[in-house]
């Protein structure tokens, strides 16, 4: 009974935290960008403007629930929920700390890859259902970008799988007791990070939205809470990728002195900030540059990385 | 070795003719003529050499043979052998072959190389059929003679040639394949009985076959030969093929291909299935008689000269069938005579038809008439062979039909009576030929030239032979005798004599 209660509590807390974090990240991003651009950012509502998040949420809820008459209605509504659901579901496999995880799947990594590839449906269906040229173009670009980087993301993780011998994330974390995988798999880490950014179509890889050319791309026609859903999905995605990077390459909860959950949160926070920093500092590449970069550079490097890792691991015994 | 040589001469001659046709239109016909002449010469010398043996000692049945393994895994050998019957038919083959080359001398103007290639290969196939003593080999040659014949009709025939060629080919091929099935059946029954899988004729001869199966197997053989012969329900290809074929084609069809059917019955059906053969003797004779009457009646009602002659063949071959199933020496001698004389007389009629067509450009007898005055020599010869066809004493056909009727009389009285009445019909249609073409009023055909030297040679050769056969048939009878005697002995219900290669030298 106790066990059941613990799990239920954990689930509820997790969901709550995640949704809050997603909202709170918006504030964080705006503040950080302002910081680096030498301006204030949101600073009126509440201390440091923290309450702007609540204000935004309320506003979104009361916005018109607009479904364009020319859109494919059902798909139009379902599309944004897919990405949110997929990302939220991905969190079940992340070991925040020993004992704090929902499902310790032995195919954890595959589950993560599977869920992250579901995200592409959101973009394609949303863009297509909007029946708008910008949206469609955004959707197409988004789709090709995401499925391309999907391949590299999977490949970049295989080095870690080889070293740890498991898809289970707890095993992977435990395998880093002595040495983080970022040391043995630096290339894998870099590739994964790049692929992760591309998967979440964050800046600088936000080609599906590209407001300057496609005016918000696949979600041009979206507004209100359905738009909010895409938004939540994106920020949850940042969190997810950061958490995965931490789990896979930076030893997860492992760390001296502090409680594991704090270590995990700290490390994740660093990467979230890194995401925001990247947005602030890098220009957006063209679609063709991004794709060619992926296929012509990342893919060969990822494959070579595997071979080299394999050879080293076998030589070591 | 001589036997192989005969086939090789024809086949290589054919290939050389085909190649030579590229250079010059007239090379091929010379090559063809030379090959046939060489073959005939070889055979005639051999015959003269063997004549004494045949005359004196009728035990020595097989004159010469040649054997060589071919596909040993299946017990297939390249086995050729010749007895008197084969020898006669072989000589006939080369004789008709020469005539065929001669009569297409001017007729064929296009693609001569390929034409003579086909002609020689037909002859090779026929010769092979008359010599093969291995059933597989026999079937092989049986097919080899078909394809070139198909081309001969299909390419150089007259207007309706493609249809006729198809019909000829499908009929003969279908029946041939049935025969092949029967051969295979025999092969396996023999193999299962004895453990020796072979296509050798002599070994297969004594095979013990369950009577029910034997009937089916014999029917397989019989159908193939019946189509070739042709026996009445299977004859429909014949008028078309004869009608449409070029002159040489008709000549070979009538002179040789029909003979292969009769030869097959004599050589294979009766020796391999003597018991069954006895069972079906009466129905077969009845079919033969039907053929005689039916052929004659239809011959009478034709207006197309070549078709008329074709139907006379049906009628004559009815005699052959009747004679074969009479199972006595007289009748069988008659059959052999009939084979030879029919080849000559009918062949001559076809050649005449060809010559007339060359001059008048028609085969329709309604458009002919009074040709005698125009071409007295042609008329005379035509008269001779019309008489031969009706069986005038003094000409070869008379001897043949007389012997057959005599033999059949011993076996079956009523059949003889009806068959004899067929002679009356033959008189009717033969006289009609003479009356419509050579006599009567002229039909405004204009001036037409009489025989040229080449045509004269052909006709002289044919006339001499038919007269010779009518006056002195003894060499033929002597030659065929040993084979026939054996056959008759084999057919005695209580005979234990095996029809095998007794003393081959």
């Amino acid at each position: 009974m106790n066990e059941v209660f613990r799990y239920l509590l954990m689930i509820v807390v997790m969901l709550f935290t995640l949704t809050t974090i997603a909202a709170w990240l918006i504030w964080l991003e705006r503040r950080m960008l302002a910081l680096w651009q030498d301006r204030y950012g949101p600073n009126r509502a509440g201390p440091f403007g923290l309450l702007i998040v609540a204000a935004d949420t309320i506003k979104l809820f009361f916005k018109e629930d607009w479904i364009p008459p020319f859109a494919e209605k059902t798909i139009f509504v379902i599309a944004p929920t897919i990405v949110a659901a997929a990302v939220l579901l991905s969190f079940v496999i992340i070991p925040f700390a020993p004992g704090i995880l929902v499902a310790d799947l032995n195919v954890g990594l595959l589950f993560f890859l599977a869920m992250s590839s579901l995200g592409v449906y959101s973009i394609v269906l949303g863009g297509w259902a909007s029946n708008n040229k910008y949206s469609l173009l955004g959707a197409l670009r988004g789709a090709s970008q995401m499925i391309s980087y999907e391949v590299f993301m999977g490949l970049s993780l295989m080095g870690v799988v080889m070293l740890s011998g498991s898809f289970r994330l707890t095993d992977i974390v435990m395998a880093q007791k002595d040495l983080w995988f970022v040391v043995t798999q630096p290339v894998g880490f870099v590739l994964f990070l790049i692929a992760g950014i591309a998967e979440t179509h964050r800046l600088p890889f936000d080609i599906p939205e590209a407001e300057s050319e496609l005016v918000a791309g696949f979600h041009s026609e979206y507004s209100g809470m359905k738009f909010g859903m895409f938004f939540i999905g994106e920020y949850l995605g940042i969190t997810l990728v950061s958490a995965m990077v931490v789990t896979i390459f930076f030893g997860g909860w492992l760390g001296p002195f502090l409680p594991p959950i704090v270590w995990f949160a700290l490390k994740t926070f660093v990467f979230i900030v890194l995401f925001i920093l990247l947005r602030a500092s890098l220009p957006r590449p063209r679609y063709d540059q991004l794709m060619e970069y992926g296929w012509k550079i990342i893919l060969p490097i990822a494959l070579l990385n595997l071979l080299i890792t394999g050879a080293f691991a076998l030589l070591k015994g | 070795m001589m036997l192989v040589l005969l086939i090789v001469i024809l086949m290589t001659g054919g290939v050389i003719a085909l190649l030579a046709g590229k250079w010059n239109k007239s090379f091929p016909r010379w090559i063809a003529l030379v090959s046939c002449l060489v073959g005939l010469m070889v055979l005639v010398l051999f015959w003269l050499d063997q004549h004494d043996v045949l005359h004196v000692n009728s035990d020595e049945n097989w004159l010469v043979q040649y054997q060589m393994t071919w596909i040993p895994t299946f017990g297939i050998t390249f086995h050729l052998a010749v007895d008197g019957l084969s020898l006669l038919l072989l000589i006939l083959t080369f004789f008709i072959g020469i005539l065929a080359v001669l009569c297409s001398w001017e007729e064929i103007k296009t693609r001569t190389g390929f034409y003579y290639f086909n002609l020689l290969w037909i002859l090779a196939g026929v010769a092979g059929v008359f010599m093969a003593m291995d059933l597989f080999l026999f079937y092989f040659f049986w097919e080899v003679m078909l394809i070139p014949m198909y081309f001969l009709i299909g390419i150089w025939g007259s207007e309706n040639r493609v249809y006729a060629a198809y019909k000829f080919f499908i009929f003969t091929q279908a029946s041939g394949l049935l025969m092949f099935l029967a051969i295979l059946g025999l092969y396996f029954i023999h193999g299962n009985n004895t453990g020796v899988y072979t296509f050798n004729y002599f070994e297969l001869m004594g095979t013990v076959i369950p009577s029910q199966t034997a009937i089916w197997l014999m029917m397989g053989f019989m159908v193939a030969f019946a189509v070739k012969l042709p026996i009445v329900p299977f004859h429909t290809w014949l008028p078309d093929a004869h009608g449409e074929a070029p002159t040489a084609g008709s000549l070979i069809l009538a002179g040789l291909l029909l003979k292969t059917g009769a030869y097959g019955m004599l050589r294979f059906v009766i020796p391999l299935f003597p018991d069954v053969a006895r069972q079906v003797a009466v129905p077969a004779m009845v079919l033969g008689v039907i053929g005689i009457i039916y052929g004659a009646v239809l011959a009478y009602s034709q207006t197309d000269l070549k078709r008329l002659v074709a139907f006379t063949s049906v009628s004559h071959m009815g005699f052959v069938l009747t004679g074969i199933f009479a199972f006595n020496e007289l009748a069988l001698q008659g059959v052999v005579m009939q084979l030879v004389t029919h080849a000559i007389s009918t062949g001559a009629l076809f050649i005449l038809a060809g010559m007339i067509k060359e001059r008048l450009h028609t085969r329709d007898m309604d458009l002919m008439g009074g040709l005698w005055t125009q071409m007295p020599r042609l008329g005379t010869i035509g008269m001779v062979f019309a008489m031969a066809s009706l069986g005038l004493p003094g000409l070869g056909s008379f001897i043949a039909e007389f012997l057959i009727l005599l033999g059949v009389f011993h076996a079956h009285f009523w059949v003889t009576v009806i068959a004899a009445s067929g002679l009356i019909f033959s008189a009717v249609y033969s006289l009609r030929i003479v009356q419509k073409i050579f006599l009567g009023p002229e039909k405004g055909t204009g001036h037409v030239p009489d025989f040229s030297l080449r045509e004269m040679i052909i006709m002289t050769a044919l006339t001499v032979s038919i007269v010779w056969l009518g006056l002195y048939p003894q060499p033929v009878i002597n030659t065929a005798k040993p084979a026939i005697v054996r056959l008759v002995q084999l057919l005695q219900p209580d005979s234990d004599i095996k029809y095998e290669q007794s003393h081959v030298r």
Partner: protein
Amino acid sequence: MEGLNASGTPGWPFVVYTLLVFALLTLIISLSYFLGQRHQGGASDQPYESGILETGSARLRFSAQFYLVAMMFVIFDIEVVFIVLWALAFHELGWPGYLSICVFIGLLFAVLIYEWSIGALNFGPDGKKILKAYRKLPFKDPAI
């Protein structure tokens, strides 16, 4: 579910979590449906095209290049499956497995090089091609 989840946690929290996620999302969407306002503006039934009137349908034919990407994804992703399996059983397979995967990856490289060489990996517009097509266009003589 047993095979999926050999140790560690029980399966039901996963199910509960999934259900909760969907419930939450449904709630958010439906709440906004009830709370949101309604209006009907002049151009609200037209797709947004930067303020100009709609030109043609949004169901356009698009470049086959996108199709090519999809195919490349399908093929490479399937091949990744084989690599994944190898990675998982990496230690058991040892050197023979390593050699095999070397051949396999070598093949992938060969395919990649091939695709590169035939231009399947050129996603941007090809300037030379465009120029060529442009030159072929039948222009009116400016003098007339």
